[in-house]
């Protein structure tokens, strides 16, 4: 049988790949399909991978499925942008609206470990007020979670991933020291710092989920700069090398290349398991609880594709909100040319950050943004020059020769929830015969105001450090959240604070979809904190006999 992880599953017959050893294996429990497991989890990324670990460690029987392959980074990952597109969700999707989103490489992963396999590792906490942005800041929606409780879970995740960060963090209430020391800054990060100082605002080393010292069998980061195409050294603390091995050690079973097409619901309105496609055929896994954790596009798609006569609008959708309030984050940038050689391809792309505009409320728009230093690799950079700036021909070739002198700043900006930004089902079908997602996205006035503010500010920050030929990239977005929001009221939310769906009490949603708002920081630390909390809550509910 082929050893190509994209062609045939690796996690089966009582063993799973050992991610730390080329060709290696670890023992793994195998559950029967016809005996209900306590939890079947759809998706093994930031949400699903973390929860699989927490539930298995709490003693539940867990099967976690992922449509993607099970990689061993040391042997499967090349230092190559093209080759590594194998990490992305490249099944067909349709994008429309006034500002169609870019998907694929820009947005979602398909692998055991989910998008954390290729994420940029930036690991930030929400500003406390964002959990009550409607009440305290006047926009968006309140979360049903208390920031102090989240603060405790953030600390747990930071420990679990050995986040490397600064000794003191300049913004927000005090937080404990980061477990590992901050990474050395590259020239691109130093440029950000100098710009902030010139503008009179704070900056810091970015807290990153990549090792600054050895940990177990994982080596520290070697500053190779390929992070968003997968870390071939295992320094990156992705779910693949952290939560998943822990989950398996605690008795969970992972099934790779297992695409869930439908959640089955019985006449009593309870979920009974999932239909999934593996090794050429459709199969069924029985379960007492189903967790959907496929990220903010696939999660609503699966819920909508699982409609029955009893739930004609899809599962967990009595509020009508499944698929709605999709929120990307604005990801605009300002670029310039430095007389110095910056060589921003060295090191993780975002080694320095400012969260100033997340915490300063003296602005003419709602929400906030952070901005970070950048390190685009050549294909991405050339395509940015072509698509954002319209360059091709000799002008493109000449511009590319200055690659090593490029310096840039890029935001992660808050976009407001709008019901019209949404995921629906298209007529076209994918390779499994399932209707594909249609993703509709348009920016609001507030989104534009935030973007304008950030571009003006960052342009001044680059001017202040004598960068030349400054230009703005104004069409980019990143991250996906919000299509199954949590809340305190079944009429205005899809799940409760425990990620439990209001309509089907043994159906849970635990991924980026549950965010009511997105804030101005990257989402994964929050997704993992919520998953840890959900694991604890499920354990507590089980003890009360309330599952």
């Amino acid at each position, binding site marked *: 049988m082929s050893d190509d992880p994209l062609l045939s599953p690796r996690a089966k017959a009582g063993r799973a790949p050992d991610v730390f050893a080329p060709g290696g294996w670890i023992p793994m429990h195998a559950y029967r399909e016809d005996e209900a497991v306590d939890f079947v989890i759809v998706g093994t990324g930031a949400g699903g991978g973390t929860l699989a670990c927490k539930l298995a460690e709490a003693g539940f029987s867990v099967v976690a499925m992922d449509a993607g392959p099970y990689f061993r980074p040391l*042997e*499967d*990952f*090349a*230092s*190559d*942008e*093209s*080759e590594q597109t194998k990490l*992305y969700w*490249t099944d*067909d*999707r349709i*994008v*429309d609206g006034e500002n*169609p*989103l*870019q*998907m*694929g*490489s820009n947005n979602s992963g398909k692998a055991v470990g989910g998008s954390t396999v290729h994420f940029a590792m930036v690991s930030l906490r929400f500003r406390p007020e964002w959990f009550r942005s409607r009440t305290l800041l006047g926009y968006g929606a309140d979360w049903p979670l208390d920031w102090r409780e989240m603060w405790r879970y953030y600390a747990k995740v930071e420990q679990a991933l050995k986040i490397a960060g600064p000794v003191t963090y300049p913004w927000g209430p005090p937080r404990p020291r980061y477990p590992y020391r901050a990474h*050395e800054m*590259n*020239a691109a990060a*130093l*440029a950000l710092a100098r710009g902030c100082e010139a503008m009179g605002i704070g900056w810091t080393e970015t807290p990153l989920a990549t090792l600054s010292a050895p940990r177990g069998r994982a*080596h520290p980061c*070697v*500053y*190779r*700069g*390929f992070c968003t195409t997968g870390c*071939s*050294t295992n320094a990156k603390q992705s779910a693949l090398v952290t939560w998943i091995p822990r989950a398996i050690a605690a008795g969970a079973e992972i099934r790779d290349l297992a695409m869930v097409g439908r959640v089955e619901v019985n006449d009593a309105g309870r979920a009974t398991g999932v239909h999934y496609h593996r090794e050429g055929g459709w199969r069924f896994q029985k379960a007492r609880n189903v967790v959907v954790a496929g990220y903010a596009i696939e999660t609503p798609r699966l819920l909508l594709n699982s409609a029955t006569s009893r739930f004609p609008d899809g599962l967990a959708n009595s509020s009508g909100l499944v698929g709605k309030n999709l929120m990307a984050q604005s990801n605009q940038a300002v670029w310039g040319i*430095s007389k*110095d*050689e*910056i*060589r921003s*391809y*060295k*090191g993780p792309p975002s080694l320095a950050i400012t969260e100033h505009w997340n915490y300063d409320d003296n602005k003419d728009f709602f929400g906030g943004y952070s901005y970070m230093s950048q390190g685009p690799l*050549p*294909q991405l950079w*050339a*395509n940015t020059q*072509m*698509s954002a700036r*319209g360059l*091709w*021909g000799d002008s*493109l*070739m*000449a511009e*590319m*020769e200055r*690659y*090593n002198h490029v310096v840039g700043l890029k935001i992660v900006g808050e976009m407001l929830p709008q019901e019209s930004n949404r995921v629906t089902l298209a007529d076209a079908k994918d390779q499994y015969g399932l209707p594909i997602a*249609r*993703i509709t996205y348009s920016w609001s006035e507030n989104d534009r105001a935030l973007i304008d503010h950030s571009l003006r500010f960052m342009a001044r920050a680059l001017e202040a450090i004598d960068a030349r030929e400054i230009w703005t990239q104004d069409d980019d977005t990143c991250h996906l959240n919000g299509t199954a929001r949590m809340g305190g009221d079944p009429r205005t939310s899809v799940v409760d604070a425990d990620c439990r769906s209001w309509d089907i009490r043994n159906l849970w949603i635990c991924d980026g979809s549950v965010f009511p708002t997105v804030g101005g920081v990257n989402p994964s630390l929050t997704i993992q904190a919520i998953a840890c909390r959900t694991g604890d809550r499920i354990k507590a509910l089980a003890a009360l006999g309330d599952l």
Partner: protein
Amino acid sequence: MPDRFPGYDVLSKRWTPSWNQKTREVINRRLALTNEPRYLTAEEFALVTVIAARIVPQPGHRPPVPVAALIDHQLDRDQGDGYRHAGMPPLQEAWRQGLRALNAEAQAAHEAPFDQLRTADQDALLTQMQEGKLKDAAWGGMSSATFFKQRLAHDIVHAYYAHPTAWNEIGWGGPASPRGYVRMDANERDPWEAAEVKDGDVEAARRKNRHVG
């Protein structure tokens, strides 16, 4: 244009700790691609070659990057991006239809197929495509601007910058696992990175680049 990184060859690192085994395999396969079509017809392949020469013009003094072969390989494997704009057909169909439409536009404007136009006329048509001004019926429901930005130029640029020759041209370090990099500050160069010509001293840069490995 004078070489900015004279003598730099990213392939000289192929057997160093900057390249892991997987990277060697992947790049070897890419370098072994022959310049003949597998998916496209011979005419389509020739047309892509001509278009690519406008989007990513290459100097005559070195072996060219086989852009059309790389695109053909992508089409042969039907390797899409994971999304398409409403109105855009899937990868293979979009390319076929776009190439047909471009030839139809060339016929309408100049009574000749695209690859027989003067380069200035080719560029003018590509500019009109980029601006969404081409509207021949042959485009079907596809916007010419979207085809340019999301497909034609997108795929050509990605193909070109997937090739070590292009990496040499821009002085990028290339594959870097497991060795990575050590010197992180501005104007600091690891001995296995490209040296840029400084103050017109081509020989000094060439000397350094000779030792890259």
